[in-house]
């Protein structure tokens, strides 16, 4: 009996080892080769489903092929391709086919550029998403920012022929922003909006991080970019001059208590920072005690028995719905609050309903909810979608206006492009003074677009920049600066 048990254990062990050995042969780097103009794969029937799925994905092989090649036929025809099959041993086959003859292209194909997913391309900058920040310069006069005017100073380099600053503030131009030579170094001043900027100096053609700045990011090419914040807020706390440390923390830095230490002043404590547009909760921590901001009357409960100070950065927009005076309540919901229907209650006045709300610059969709009934804003001519899916469209502080003045009698004009995924329903233009307009907030960079006039696609006749597209027609081209 014992001997039978031992044999069973041995058999199981053998099966396990065999299984491991079979699986161990799986190496996607070794299954494909090119030989005499033929593409050759060695395929193993013992691979797991996930391994087969990976092979199918990596090598663009039909999953049906991975089944049919083990049916014992010398030729397999799948997905319009004929594969020759050679059995090496049971469960292991070699399949081959001629590499496809080269198809001469008419245009737009350049195989010197490879698929983005095949290579590790650098991650784009995070200027747009930076929530907060403070500077960390080792040199006092390396950077200053007053009244929207930013000044960068690089000491030394008296023998340099030229020094430029290049960064996200000038779209990494290497020629646009020369620094001025001074007695002690090189200076560049320019108007900049509050925000986070990455930059480098170019000293006689050589990229150089700012030696006076400790704040940096990996440039993904083996070096680093310097980082600077142009401030838009100063946290101030009067008094507490005997305290050892005062820290400000809030929703913007996930209530990190060690990060934003305030600086002692004759009147108390302060800390200039950059804060992204929006509403932020915050508190001061004086040594070990927490305080709301005594200079800020906006205090709200945090839901756990405590209170926080609240502040808003950015401009305020007043949403208004006239009439509906008999409604019990009117709510506002939109893309700016995740379409939460229970959050933004509007206030009643003699004209109807209103709500003041701080918004970052951008494009938004929204609706009112009057006594539970969703409705578009009757005073807003811009909307997207149709039927029940129609929403009011709002651009807060637009940076571009699309205009078309050649079709005043058209029934409908739609603007469509790379910025709205070429939607053919959204972004209906409004007729004003005989021309069609659509104000919008566009990101920095390239945008391609067309107008759809009563169903007919057309280039922007007022824009001389256009390019060919993959459909053999053309798109208008628009570049937006940083």
């Amino acid at each position: 009996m014992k001997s039978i048990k031992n044999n069973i254990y041995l058999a199981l062990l053998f099966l396990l080892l065999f299984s491991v050995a079979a699986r161990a042969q799986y190496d996607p780097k070794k299954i494909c080769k090119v030989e005499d103009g033929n593409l050759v794969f060695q395929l193993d029937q013992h691979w797991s489903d996930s391994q087969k799925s990976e092979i199918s994905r990596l090598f663009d092989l039909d999953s049906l092929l991975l089944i049919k090649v083990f049916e014992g036929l010398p030729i397999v025809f799948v997905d319009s391709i004929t594969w020759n099959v050679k059995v090496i041993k049971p469960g292991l086959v070699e399949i081959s086919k001629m590499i496809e003859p080269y198809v001469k292209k008419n245009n737009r194909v350049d195989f010197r550029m490879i698929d983005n997913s095949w290579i590790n391309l650098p991650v784009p900058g995070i200027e747009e998403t930076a929530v907060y920040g403070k500077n960390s310069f080792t040199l006092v006069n390396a950077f200053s920012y007053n009244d929207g005017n930013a000044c960068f100073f690089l000491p030394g380099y008296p023998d340099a022929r030229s020094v430029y600053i290049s960064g996200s503030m000038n779209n990494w131009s290497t020629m646009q922003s020369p620094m001025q030579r001074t007695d002690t170094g090189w200076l560049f001043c320019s108007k900049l909006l509050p925000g986070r900027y990455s930059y480098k100096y170019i000293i006689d053609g050589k990229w150089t991080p700012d030696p006076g700045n400790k704040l940096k990011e990996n440039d993904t090419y083996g070096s680093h970019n310097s980082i600077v914040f142009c401030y838009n807020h100063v946290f101030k706390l009067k008094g507490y001059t005997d305290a050892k440390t005062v820290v400000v923390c809030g929703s913007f830095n996930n209530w990190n208590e060690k990060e934003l230490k305030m600086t002692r002043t004759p009147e108390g404590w302060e800390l200039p920072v950059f804060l992204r547009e929006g509403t932020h909760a915050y508190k001061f921590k004086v040594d070990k005690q927490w305080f709301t901001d005594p200079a800020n009357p906006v205090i709200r409960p945090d839901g756990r028995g405590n209170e926080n100070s609240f502040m808003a950065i950015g401009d305020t927009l007043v949403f208004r719905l006239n009439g509906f005076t008999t409604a019990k309540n009117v709510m506002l919901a939109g893309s700016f609050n995740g379409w939460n229907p229970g959050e933004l209650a509007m206030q009643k006045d003699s004209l109807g309903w209103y709500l003041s709300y701080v918004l970052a610059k951008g494009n938004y969709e929204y609706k009112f909810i009057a006594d539970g009934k969703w409705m578009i804003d009757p005073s807003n001519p811009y909307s997207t979608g149709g039927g029940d899916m129609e929403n009011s469209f709002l651009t807060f502080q637009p940076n571009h206006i699309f205009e078309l003045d050649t079709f005043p009698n058209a029934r409908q004009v739609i603007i469509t492009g790379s910025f709205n995924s070429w939607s053919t329903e959204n972004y209906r233009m409004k007729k004003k003074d005989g021309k069609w307009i659509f104000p919008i907030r566009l990101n920095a960079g390239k945008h391609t677009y067309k107008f759809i006039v009563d169903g007919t696609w057309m280039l922007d006749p007022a824009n001389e920049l256009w390019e060919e597209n993959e459909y053999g027609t053309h798109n208008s081209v628009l570049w937006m600066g940083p």
Partner: protein
Amino acid sequence: MKPAPGLFHRCLLLLLFLAVGISFSFVPSSQVGKADDPLIINLSLLPIKNINIVDPEALGDFNSLTIPLKRAGRLLLIEAVIDGETGNLVFDTGATGLVLNKTYFRSHATFDNGSSNGITGSTGNIGCTFAKEIRISDLYYRNIKADMVDLSHIENRRGFKVIGLLGFNMIKSFEIVIDATHNELQLHRIDRKGNRVQPEEVETVQDYTQKINPWRPVLIIKGMVGGKSLNFCLDTGAETNVISSRSPKTVLSTISITRRAGLGGAGQATNEVLFGTMNDFMLDKTPIRDMETIVTNPDALSEVYGVIIDGMLGYNFLVKGIITINLTKKQFGIRYLNQPAS
């Protein structure tokens, strides 16, 4: 009837003269090779325009100039102002001269110049124009002939404004130093012997040098793969290396294929693209390992360069060292960033 010996010799001389004359009218004499010369120019693909009889004159008050390179993915970009239009030129030694992106120069007068090879990613008939002024840092050119093609596919994939390509002829009068790791392109003026007008204080020592033919329309480097000597085009506009799928078995057996895909737009026939790693590339006796490469049909390579080559060395090769090209000295050199194991 037997021709008179004098007439026979005269005919022979005339034929020889015609043959040599025709050869000179298309390619420099050094390029006229045997029928089995792997670098025979494919005249059906290479328009005469791509052979610059007179190289563009590079102007500017400098003896040595360092141009900062920008990166867009694996492309190397050079900021330029061309006839008032500011943007980026792709630094592209795989192109022969200056190529302008149609999108930004439609107002320029154009003339038909026959069909192009595929070096710009476009084939078929293309137009030509003249750029009045090109300014790059302290370097400038005047009245330069340029091809006009649509380069929107590069622009849209990499997100940078691309106003054109800066091809090899534009800078080949200099000693060229490409330091892709530090994003620098150095141009040094040289004398008739190829020596720098302003010598370096401490001369850079090359780890390896190779004689190159200065008369080719593109820069050809000899490299060894799997023990076979192959001709590669040094192409700074290529995001990865490329090797011909018709290479000998010993060559292809050193390449691990890790991806396969079709390449083509909607409704188009696709080209099969194989992607892998070149494990056994050598210049002389120094192995350079782990370079990503595409394996492609040799017809595609011919279409791109107009010459028959075995592959191209792109970004993956450029980042292995600091590369120096001096056509007057007929020399290619490399200083490895990390000395490869021998």
